[in-house]
């Protein structure tokens, strides 16, 4: 199977890192599944989950632990209840757990301080690891997260594109 390499502007760019990782995991998933036909919705759902998890994980790994959200996502992935991988008690896990326990009770004040309360909370739910961040960092993380998500979507689209007959 040809590995589809997206145009590389930068060999170590986020996009290429993510693409390589994701393709690798995709091939692993394909290798795992017994037959091409898995009719039950369960199977399909499982596959979907696997793929999604693979995508998320690839993205998070591409970002390493530089960002709070990536750390939180990795931690989440590692300690999933139905996790198929063994839970590694690595330093990353410990660190993120510690982070998660440090919930800052920050009041999102400001000129329109009152306004930020609700939306900020919603944003916190969306961005992994957002609960333990104050507004400024949250916005920072959101920006990076959006950037990575767009990369992820683009790469996945391209892959889907490539493989569609």
């Amino acid at each position, binding site marked *: 199977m040809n590995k589809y390499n997206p145009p590389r502007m930068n060999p170590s760019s986020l996009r290429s890192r993510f693409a390589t990782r994701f393709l690798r995991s995709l091939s692993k998933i394909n290798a795992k599944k017994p037959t091409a036909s898995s009719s039950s919705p369960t199977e399909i759902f499982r596959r979907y989950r696997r793929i999604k998890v693979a995508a998320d994980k690839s993205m998070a790994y591409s970002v390493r632990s530089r960002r709070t959200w990536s750390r939180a996502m990795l931690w989440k992935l590692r300690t999933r209840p139905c996790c198929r991988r063994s839970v590694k008690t690595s330093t990353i896990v410990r660190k993120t757990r510690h982070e998660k326990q440090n919930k800052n009770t920050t009041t999102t004040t400001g000129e329109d301080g009152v306004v*930020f309360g609700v939306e900020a909370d919603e944003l916190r739910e969306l961005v992994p690891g957002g609960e333990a961040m104050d507004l400024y960092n949250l916005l920072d993380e959101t920006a990076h997260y959006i950037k990575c998500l767009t990369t992820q979507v683009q790469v*996945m689209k391209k892959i889907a594109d490539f*493989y*569609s007959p």
Partner: protein
Amino acid sequence: MESVADVLVKKVKEKVAKLTVGAPEDDCDITPVVSESSANFIEGLVKDAKEKGATFCQEYKRDGNLIWPLLLDNVRPDMRIAWEEPFGPVLPVIRINSIEEGIHHCNASNFGLQGCVFTKDVNKAKLISDAMETGTVQINSAPARGPDHFPFQGLKDSGIGSQGVTNSINMMTKIKSTVINLPTPSYTPCSREMQAMNPLLNPAQQLPLQDLQSTARQQIQNPHFDPTASHDDFLEQMLSPLSSCSWSDLKSPWDPPKSDETGPPNVGFHYDEVLASKLRQHQINGGDGGGVSSPATAAIKMMAQQQMMLPGRGVAGMPLSLGSSGAAGSHHQNDIIYGSSFKSPNQQGGEGSMQSLYNGFSDGSLPGTNQTQHFQHPQAPNFGATAGTVMNQSQASGSMTPAQPKQRVRARRGQATDPHSIAERLRRERIAERMKALQELVPNANKTDKASMLDEIIDYVKFLQLQVKVLSMSRLGGAAAVAPLVAEMPSEGGGDCANGGGSIHRNSNGNQTSADNDSVTVTEHQVAKLMEEDMGSAMQYLQGKGLCLMPISLATAISTATCHSRNPNKGGGSHPLLQSNGEGPSSPSMSVLSVQSATRGNGGLDGSVKDAASVSKP
């Protein structure tokens, strides 16, 4: 040394012999020690000294806990009694040959509570006491606690800290600062300096004013200046082109007692017109911007007033209380540097302060009328300070180019300069910065309102996450296959669950169900195109096409499926149908992304499966 020792021992022996020994009820000098173990301890020391050859001036006698006084002579450092305190009536005498030997023995111990020096020579006494490492040194006296107000402490192992009235209070006191934050600041950093100066009514204190013209300085410094003669000169100096006096003093309120007003105001009023005219002239000459004259006039009036007041009040420096009467509002207290504001009212601060001055003066510019305001003013005492220090600041700044007045952070009107507010402001700015950055990332983000901006961001993040889910769905059936589920219009969809089952089947087989429906195709194309360009409008298009229910159900279905891995089964909208006939792959240009929400585990085929919208992209 020997002679001293012999004489001393002889004298002590005589005194010891006179001591009465017995029970305390009998008012005896020597009474039993506190406990048997203590008595035993003392006996141990005495025995040790005896073994090592000390000279016993009396017989050692003990009765229970009562020990007779004992003087031991020729005690050497190798005996225990030379180091361990007996806490009983035993007195060792160590004979030394030099002062250094004595000091050395004193300092060699681990304890250091008290020491005594007996000498007639005060120099020796001081030298020895300085060298002794003890908490207290008594000169020509036995060890004692007092005097009471002296600190009492021990060095090394003899205690921690220091006793004594002051010391004990300090040791048991923790400083706590209470900060009362007024709605608006009552001081500026410069005002603090001035405040320190202000109470000191020496001419020498008027250091900030040194930078003024020399003549002006002289006049200012002379608190008893002759108002008549020096006034005009001073005014000229103040208004000279090089004058960099800060007119912010003009806004500093003064806090004079009303009594001061009585006499001088008359005089002041007299000079007001003179000053006003002079100022006007000068301003015209200097080409000031319009609108400055009246506040400046009033300011000068204030100045004159203050000048009059100076002798009376003995306030250091006229500018200190300049114009303070006029500036009633507390908002004037912000450190607005006038710089050479009269010359360049364009300066930001200058304008503002001019305005404030004007406002203040418009209430009735003459100081007499404004006094009542000041009495209510809580921050009055500080303002005298404000003036001078601000002026000082403006000196430096004024000496720079007038176009560059800022030397430190200038607060805008109504804004505080205390660190707390500055930090808050910084924080807000940073957040605004971040929002701007986010705005660039999010398409369609042309909102200016922060709240709606956040909403946009949230929607976009949700949309992206949704896309990821959709895309991962599309991988089902192998990397080479893209699930070809076709969205259908709600009108065409019949909520057919059986079809859903079939479609799943097709899904897994990697077949692509062609979108035979042209309308659907068109829709999909459109949506796909829109997706490429603009996510927001893509969604809107979907919604507009009547697929509004789908995204909702899609979103909920997916979210519930992923989050809870449960059957989402939202009753909502249409079921986009899959083609019941499994045709071959659709056109290559169409790769369809579809999302399914499936129940976990069981019961999938019984209609609990919903096919959500699929979006195609070319």
